[in-house]
């Protein structure tokens, strides 16, 4: 240390720059978000890779390879057109849920497990719940970006035409809501899982959620398997996918709009609450 012309640390000087709590918290929140976006920009390649691979392969096999070789789902012709249209909503919805887990839950598990970096951000001048909510906000932004990235894939990868009818009002409201729900799920998971259980997140949560999340079929078509039709209702991804089908397609059955909105908002509220509670528990003693 050579620079002794530095600001002195008198009490008056310190107290002079104390901002009203709300103003300080607002600035801290924005700065935390800025930090997360900076990290996202630095790791954009990784973000794109983890976002694109799974939906790309899914679309490639089911909507390009299958129709070409005349196998499986629909076998070809109109049926496979219907399937690639149906799948559009499904791949976007699952990409969003994936992102909620990858952008929020996985870093947080690491953080609480080994790095403890979060301890510094918890000392930023905002309430603890706001530190947690910032993580959700950043995760939601990434989930929406994921939706944007996957959308063209769903349009152009299938060998057969995809018929979309966009309902903008539904789309611009359900995308952010769904993104918030995904990130809230990430927070709830991230604050509860130990590092050694990370692989279980995928085998016990992500995979069942996507396979049973009305990605490959509309919910109404589960009618012949009544117990499953009722069982999958606990899966938040079902509502997101139904909502995306409502926003993007016609002719495919979907749940009632009101039900979709209410349940997505309800899930978001419950998961966010659980996540913030878990977060507080992890950082405060």
């Amino acid at each position: 240390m050579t620079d002794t012309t530095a600001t002195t640390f008198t009490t008056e000087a310190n107290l002079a720059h104390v901002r009203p709590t709300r103003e300080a918290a607002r600035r801290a929140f924005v700065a935390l978000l800025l930090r997360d976006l900076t990290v996202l920009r630095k790791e954009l390649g990784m973000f794109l890779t983890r976002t694109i691979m799974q939906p790309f392969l899914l679309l490639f096999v089911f909507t390009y390879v299958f129709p070409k070789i005349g196998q499986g789902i629909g076998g070809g012709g109109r049926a496979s057109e219907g399937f690639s249209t149906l799948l559009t909503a499904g791949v976007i919805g699952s990409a969003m849920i994936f992102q909620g887990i990858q952008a929020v839950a996985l870093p947080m598990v690491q953080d609480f497990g080994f790095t403890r970096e979060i301890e510094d951000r918890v000392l930023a001048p905002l309430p603890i719940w706001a530190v947690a909510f910032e993580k959700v906000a950043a995760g939601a932004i990434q989930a929406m970006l994921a939706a944007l990235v996957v959308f063209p894939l769903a349009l152009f990868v299938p060998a057969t035409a995809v018929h979309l009818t966009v309902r903008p009002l539904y789309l611009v409201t359900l995308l952010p809501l769904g993104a918030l729900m995904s990130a809230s799920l990430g927070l709830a998971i991230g604050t509860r899982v130990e590092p050694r259980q990370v692989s279980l997140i995928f085998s016990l949560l992500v995979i069942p959620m996507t396979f049973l999340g009305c990605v490959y079929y509309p919910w109404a078509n589960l009618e012949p398997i009544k117990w499953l039709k009722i069982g999958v209702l606990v899966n938040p991804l079902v509502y997101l996918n139904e909502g995306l089908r409502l926003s993007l397609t016609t002719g495919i059955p979907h749940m009632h709009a009101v039900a979709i909105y209410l349940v997505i908002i309800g899930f978001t509220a419950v998961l966010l609450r659980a996540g913030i509670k878990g977060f507080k528990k992890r950082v405060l003693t």
Partner: protein
Amino acid sequence: MIRTVALTKRYPGPPAGPPGGWGGGPSRAAGSNGAAAVAVDQLDLEVRGGEIFGLLGPNGAGKTTTIGMLTTRVIPTAGEAWVAGIDVVAEPARAKQLIGVVTQTNTLDRSLTVYENLFFHGRYFGMSGHDAKAEANRLLEQFRLGEKAKTDVNALSGGMAQRLMVARSIMHKPAVLFLDEPTAGLDPQSRLSLWATVQELNALGQTILLTTHYMEEADQLCGRVAIMDHGKILALDTPSGLKRSVDADTVVTVAADRDSAQLASVFGALDGVTKTDPIPEGVVVHVRGGRGILPRILQAAEAAGIEVNDLSVAEPTLETVFISLTGKELRD
């Protein structure tokens, strides 16, 4: 600048302990017997503006938990605490504006560069982009990290990482800087360099509360030192005042393979010996104006048939004070 009244933290047993950065040491050590652990017990503390105040004590004394409570991370079971006049329990978000913290663990943001760690910290505390940039660059120079500005923080040595943590903690010009065991795990050179930094910050008026279990550190740096054990303050004074409180000008540590109590009775009877403190290796003999004490100790030992393994003579240190207060050594 800091005031606590009957500040208490009790961890329900078996204690979960504070998370990593907050030591884990205190509660785990104190609660290893399984009972509810009182990490900090009715602490009354007053730290004045502009001083370096030290909490000296062994692992598990409650130092880290005390810092945890003062920095809003540990919620007190009872009692009150103010930092720069703000009630840290009632208004944690407001109090956080005024505190800077260096935790025991490395909490640098590993996704960011050295420069970005400072820059974003400034932004968290409300600085404009322009101000944060200027201040980050100034601190990088001040802490001799200028060349590392664009480096990944994972590539820093322990000493450099610690310097960056300190730089980051003063980025927002806190009213009080908390340093929790700041030199634990540092090499001797980095330790001296950090001591110099701490002294220079203090010379500029920075109020600092630090915890340490190194008596030299408390002695060298601190204007006042509180000796802490089992969550309580046992003595509080300037380092020299504490040392004067030991009624001795010479301290002889005798290591021998005998029961400490027996050693104490043998040497306690010698002329000029004011006090004896048993320690695991033997006994610490406090002497005032005792001429030729060493030969007399050896004679007494021989007369009693005690084989002396080691003998060391020193002036009273904070360690002496600690031993005479607790009967334990600091490193225990």
